[in-house]
């Protein structure tokens, strides 16, 4: 296994006849190395490694789990790192592809080409195509900007202030909690509120119009 670990540095550019599978024409070196090393891993250990990988894909911290696995098997932490990194890349690439076009049979075939044991192919497959599909932060590259997760509001009426003895002025306070974890609090004067409402309605109308007008309807 130490030898296998070294081979990873000189990754082959071809695998199983050089067919371009879902991993592309050049299978990433760590995936190849993992494919070779994983044949010597028992099922139990493999499943634990798979769990760690899925956690990593979901953005969770895995240091502790990896340590535990290292303690209970005869694999070194370095070897585990190679295995996990290969499994991670494999799953990450598979999860990027839309389920509408990427079929399970193709995925399984590609893994067979890499000579990954059948059992393990089934496990990989259940992650990608089953309902244990990870909800990951890393693979969903769509959002570049935060979105609103929670929106709280309050209407206040200022009765009297140090500058204005008789104010009786309503004002709206908004608290926006965003998907990036930040919260923003601000006041909206009544006139600005009307503008805001008008604009949001306009945005919705634009979106509806765009969808109707769209000529780029791609059907499967």
């Amino acid at each position, binding site marked *: 296994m130490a030898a296998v670990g070294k081979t990873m540095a000189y990754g082959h550019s071809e695998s199983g006849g050089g067919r371009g599978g879902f991993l592309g024409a050049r299978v990433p070196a760590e995936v190849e190395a993992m494919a070779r090393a994983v044949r010597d891993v028992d099922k139990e250990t493999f499943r634990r490694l798979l769990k760690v990988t899925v956690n990593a894909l979901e953005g969770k911290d895995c240091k502790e789990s990896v340590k535990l696995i290292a303690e209970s098997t005869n694999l070194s932490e370095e070897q585990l790192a190679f295995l996990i990194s290969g499994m991670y890349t494999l799953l990450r690439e598979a999860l990027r592809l839309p389920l509408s076009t990427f079929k399970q049979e193709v995925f399984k075939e590609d893994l067979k080409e890499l000579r990954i044991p059948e059992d393990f192919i089934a496990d990989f497959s259940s992650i990608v195509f089953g309902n244990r599909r990870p909800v990951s932060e890393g693979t969903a590259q769509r959002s570049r900007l935060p979105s609103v997760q929670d929106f709280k509001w309050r209407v206040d009426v200022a009765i009297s202030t140090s500058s204005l003895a008789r104010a009786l002025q309503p004002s709206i306070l908004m608290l926006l909690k965003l998907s990036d974890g930040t919260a923003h609090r601000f006041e909206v004067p009544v006139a600005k509120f009307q503008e805001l409402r008008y604009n*949001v309605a306009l*945005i919705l109308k634009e979106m509806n119009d765009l969808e109707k007008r769209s000529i780029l309807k791609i059907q499967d």
Partner: protein
Amino acid sequence: MAAAEQQQQQPPPPPPPEGCRPLSALLGGIAQAAYYGKAGITEELLRRQLYPEAAPEEFRALRAKMGGLLQSIASADMDLNQLEAFLTAQTKKQGGITSDQAAVIAKFWKNHRIKIRESLINQSRWDNVLKNMNWRVDLKSQSRHIDQINTPVAIVEMELGKNGQESEFLCLEFDEAKVNQMLKKLSEIEESMTSLTQAT
């Protein structure tokens, strides 16, 4: 009665020191400094520009008196009735104002009331205020992920600022569902406010 007649006429072109134009301009200068946040309007500047023949102490007294009156009027946000009553009382006081001056002040307040009120309300807003919003709607025409095409996304930029500080720009993304949710909440707010203003 001659004085009453004079009040209804337009002021003559070369005004005496207590005439309409310098006083009107003085009120304007006071408002600029106190309510519109304009810096650098000193007493000396106003005196030189508007009342060059007046002695500094004399001018100071005039400015203080006018400033005080304007503050009373602004703080109470007087309507026309209250204003008339107030100014009339001032003309009858010892060391008060003339009826000419009362007319100038009344005219000034009619023109500036709304703006000054808005400014005073702003002075009590210490948190971030929504100043402006810009937006656009994007439609992906090409994407690595086929199921993302044809879903419009709104990009909204909100300018949030405090008095005298640089604005913060908040950039947000909304899909159609979120825009809908937002609109619903805004309608709730609108309803709440309408019932509030009807009650008062």
